[in-house]
């Protein structure tokens, strides 16, 4: 499966890019996080505490155990601070 993976705010800064294409067999968001974290240290730095990282699949907020099946776009970001 090929996914667009997006990063925002300090997640983006730690990983060092805003968007990339990832080819993965991960079943869930948590699997994808694990897969990326072992890949390179910068992912591990961004994902070390997943209680402060939020996830959206195709622009809808989901939990870590959400299945990736059918997903086109996955985004990781800190809790929002707009307003």
């Amino acid at each position, binding site marked *: 499966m090929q996914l667009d993976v997006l990063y925002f705010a300090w997640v983006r800064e730690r990983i060092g890019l805003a968007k990339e294409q990832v080819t993965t067999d991960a079943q869930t968001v948590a699997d994808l996080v694990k897969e990326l974290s072992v890949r390179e240290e910068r992912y591990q730095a961004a994902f070390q505490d997943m209680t402060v990282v939020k996830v959206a699949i195709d622009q809808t907020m989901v939990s870590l155990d959400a299945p990736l099946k059918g997903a086109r776009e996955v985004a990781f970001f*800190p809790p*929002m601070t*707009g*307003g």
Partner: protein
Amino acid sequence: MSVSVQAEDFDLGVEVAAMTSGNPDIGAVVTFIGLVRDTTGGALLSMELEHYPGMTEQALSQIEQAATKRWSLNASRVIHRYGNLQTGAQIMMVATASAHRSDAFEAAEFLMDYLKTDAPFWKKEHFKEGGEWVASKAADDAAKDRWSS
């Protein structure tokens, strides 16, 4: 009911006039404006607002629809800026129009509480010594949760 995500500034008076003009049923308009605040007494150079294009508009529209379902509103408007803003600059506004003030007030507070936690915006404060991401507040989650009871 309308949502804008934009770099440009906005004019509160113009927005409110556009919302209410020609609608004799409106008796009450509540607005909220968020401004760039310098909590350091002068050290803030600017505030940068990042957002998630596409998801932002969708999230704001969903929040606005939820408010419209819950309160009797004649009109509503949400504007949120992104980019680099100076101290005192307008960051965003919500406006709600209704026959009665209680609907307008409650809906405006609801919009703000959900916007704070559900709309994908992130603030970074820039100082001489570097930048710092604004931390989210537990109080904002609590403020949102009060609407679920």
